[in-house]
């Protein structure tokens, strides 16, 4: 028996969301009294992979095959399910990130394993079955999913638990899944990455603004505030719809879902569709001129005031804080 976690490496580094998945896998393994094993597909240095030992991983199955350097859901599914069989895994853990959201349901079918998408807590085992909580109705409630099959697949929501690092190095073992060239169906033509910015989906701090800013020319202070904090920037759909801000910044029901430690919302009313994408944030700060703005009901801290006045003051105060620490 074992717990297998799927880990992705990007630009030589293990993705943050994958560290969380591996840590989650180790915690599940600990609970079951078995080993935490990881599978990595594509180029990665053995030194980097060994660091997974600090989150409780015992062994890394590494398939260095260059065909895995680009994501292909069909080929990856075959390879990860083979790893699950090699490791004798009864639970497979992935991050509920871009690739995991597709790989996990495919694995569920291939392994005939019950699957919970977007787990927010560790599973509770009761004999052969497990119960896992996930958010439903765009964060307005959560539900307990019972998984009754022998094998189980869990995709864990990014930022749901903070890995605690210990000492130790994972043993890295070569892994050669049997795949034909025909299993790789997609050809990657290129990527378009927003460089120099913190990817919103991974950010721990987010500064977001909406129509209350009145026009795209007023975003300077928002960007500066984000820079001072080392935060990513986001926006409401109302402003990306009119091209004040790029579409990839839009959060909410029809945009990205974020779960940062801190979400600062400036000049955003807090419509239910917006909240759906941000209400998993640990701490929410709202700055709005209207004391009746619905966002205050979802906020931990609020300032009733004008963005043009409050944001420059925030920049100044955060600069002071950074200087003092």
């Amino acid at each position, binding site marked *: 028996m074992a717990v297998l976690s799927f880990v992705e490496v990007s630009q030589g580094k293990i993705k943050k969301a994958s560290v969380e998945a591996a840590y989650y896998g180790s915690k599940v393994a600990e609970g079951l009294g078995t080993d935490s094993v990881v599978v990595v597909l594509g180029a990665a240095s053995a030194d980097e992979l060994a660091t997974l030992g600090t989150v409780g991983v015992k062994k890394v199955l590494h398939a260095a095959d260059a065909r895995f350097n680009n994501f292909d859901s069909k080929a990856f599914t075959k390879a990860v399910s083979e790893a699950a069989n090699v490791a004798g895994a009864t639970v497979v853990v992935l991050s509920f990130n871009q690739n995991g959201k*597709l790989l996990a349901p495919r*694995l569920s079918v291939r392994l005939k394993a*019950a699957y919970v998408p977007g787990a927010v807590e560790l599973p509770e085992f009761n004999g052969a079955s497990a119960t896992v909580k996930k958010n439903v*109705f765009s964060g307005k*409630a959560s539900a*307990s999913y019972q998984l*009754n099959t022998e094998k189980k697949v869990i995709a864990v929501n990014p930022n749901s638990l903070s890995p605690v690092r210990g000492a130790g190095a994972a043993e890295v073992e070569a892994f050669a899944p049997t795949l034909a060239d025909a299993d790789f169906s997609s050809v990657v033509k290129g990527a378009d990455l927003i460089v120099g910015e913190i990817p919103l989906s*991974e950010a721990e701090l987010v500064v977001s603004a909406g129509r209350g800013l009145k026009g795209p020319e007023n975003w300077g202070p928002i960007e500066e505030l984000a820079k001072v904090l080392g935060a990513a920037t986001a926006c409401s759909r109302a402003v990306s719809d009119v091209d004040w801000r790029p579409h990839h910044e839009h959060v909410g029901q029809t945009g990205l879902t974020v779960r940062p430690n*801190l979400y600062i919302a400036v000049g955003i009313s807090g419509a239910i569709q917006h909240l759906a994408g941000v209400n998993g944030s640990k701490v929410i700060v709202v700055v709005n001129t209207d004391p009746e703005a619905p966002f205050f009901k979802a906020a931990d801290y609020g300032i009733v005031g004008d963005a043009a006045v409050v944001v420059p003051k925030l920049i100044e105060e955060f600069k002071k804080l950074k200087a003092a620490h």
Partner: protein
Amino acid sequence: MKILVPIAKVPDTTSKIAFTDNNTKFSPDGVTFIMNPTDEWYALVRAIELKEKQGGEVVVIHVGLADSEQIIRKALAIGADRAVRVDADPTDAYFVAAQIANHAKSENYDLIIAGKETIDYNSYEVGGMVAEMLDLPCVALVQKLEIENGVATITREIEGGTETVEIKLPLVICAQKELAEARIPNMKGIMGARTKPLEVVTADATEKLTVITGYHLPEKAKECKYVSPDNVGELVRLLHEEAKVV
């Protein structure tokens, strides 16, 4: 080109969420049900656009009970050619995916375009499951889709940006925003939808892999702590010392 679009029925986002039977069942009382927005705005419209350009047929499939007829007719009004309803309560993604895959096996689709997720269970499951059941390639979080000579050029979301890939048909796509511009059905579409074929089929016996054993509502509303705009330093202090997030 023959395209299948699976459509789901969901509560409107503004619905009040309540549960009954000791918090084990979702209460549909007073809830307005709509076609899942991603399916309606992006998956269906892109399928129709491709058909308009290259010819072919757009079929919508829905796993659900008779009370879903309205959303199916809406899909026909927007421009789908015909519809299939699998008569069963969709309580498990594996079950739903199996129904869609079984239907797809009996017809030769070049393309299946699902939505990325439903707005009620937010599970991102069905598209990928259908692909695996049919042993087809699949790309999720798709923002752009062009098809030429049997090859799809697809732009999908990745961390911090997008990636463009080429894949030969047939394949499964999970659509998201930017793939198309939503269409509102016009009078001609609405009239025409009444006479378009809607076939109702019985469900195949398939096991369900998961069971929802209970729902939980957030414990209590948050208490917002207000800080004066004249004392912004106090907010920064609270974030540092009390919330410990900066």
